[in-house]
């Protein structure tokens, strides 16, 4: 039971790419992409984010990361609109760097707050 991640992006490709990058070092973490609009355009899809949020949870909670401000608002609204009792936080973090750091942290079995902090403190490493 590990903390899961949702990657909220305006672009389906971007969400998928962040997911595959983060999954590389976190094979046991549920990382769910939620990118693009229903018709494949650029934008965020609330229902897609909500569904990803449900799927990312395995009981330990979910950290959501976003690309731009409107994706952040969609993510926050999805968390507020939850009907099932999932613990979820929207991380104020750089998307790619935060996702990789959070994924590695979640892989190590850290709890929700620790994974959220790992995202928020992320920066590019060499």
């Amino acid at each position: 039971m590990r903390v899961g991640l949702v990657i909220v992006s305006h672009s389906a490709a971007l969400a998928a790419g962040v997911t595959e990058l983060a999954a590389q070092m976190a094979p046991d973490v549920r990382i769910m992409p939620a990118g693009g609009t229903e018709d494949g355009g650029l934008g965020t899809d609330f229902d897609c984010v909500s569904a990803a949020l449900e799927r990312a949870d395995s009981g330990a909670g979910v950290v959501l990361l976003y690309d731009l401000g409107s994706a952040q608002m969609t993510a926050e609204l999805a968390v507020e609109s939850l009907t099932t009792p999932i613990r979820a936080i929207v991380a104020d973090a750089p998307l790619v760097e935060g996702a990789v750091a959070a994924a590695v942290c979640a892989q190590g079995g850290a709890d929700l707050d620790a994974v959220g902090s790992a995202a928020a403190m992320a920066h590019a490493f060499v």
Partner: protein
Amino acid sequence: MGCSVEEVTAAVRVAAEKVIEHRDELVELDRVIGDGDHGENLHRGFTAVVAKLDGGGFDSPAAVLKVTATTLISTVGGAAGPLYGTAFLRAATALGDVSEVDGRMAATALEAALEGVVARGKAAPGDKTMVDALTPAVAAARSTVDAGIADVLMAAADAAAAGAAATVPLVARKGRASYLGERSAGHLDPGARSTAVLLRALADAASRTQRQ
């Protein structure tokens, strides 16, 4: 005298029509300081709202605003989705289960809508967003509160129009336009404009039904 559930439904339909009419204008405004989709976003959202209203079965003004909210949230796809969605949601909650919306309630609902937008987007007045249209609209509604709903909404619409126009010189500090920095000055904010369009439509609809 206030607006019944049928009248509120009719007013939201007029709002949808007007926003759809202004599609190209909103696209053009957003093209200059954003990503050019605001008109499309609202077109898509309000088209879906109309389809939901066609389904009928709403037993209170709040129920109409609530379905408007959830539909916008699910279909708009841009910042305006969670923002207007939260606005309509908070307005619905503020109305509770009343069966008629009077001027005072309309002002209260508008104020709740503004609070929702601010809670969602964290914009302050002067940040060049829809908050710059909605804030003076709420103030105007509040100071007309003892008049009928048509007058309250008309005052709000007038104030929103002025507030939107006043976004032109501002430098954006929230939303995509903030990426432009100083270059955002000199242009009307698309979201402030759509707020003014929406409020004008609601006011017009209320005037018509209240005059009958």
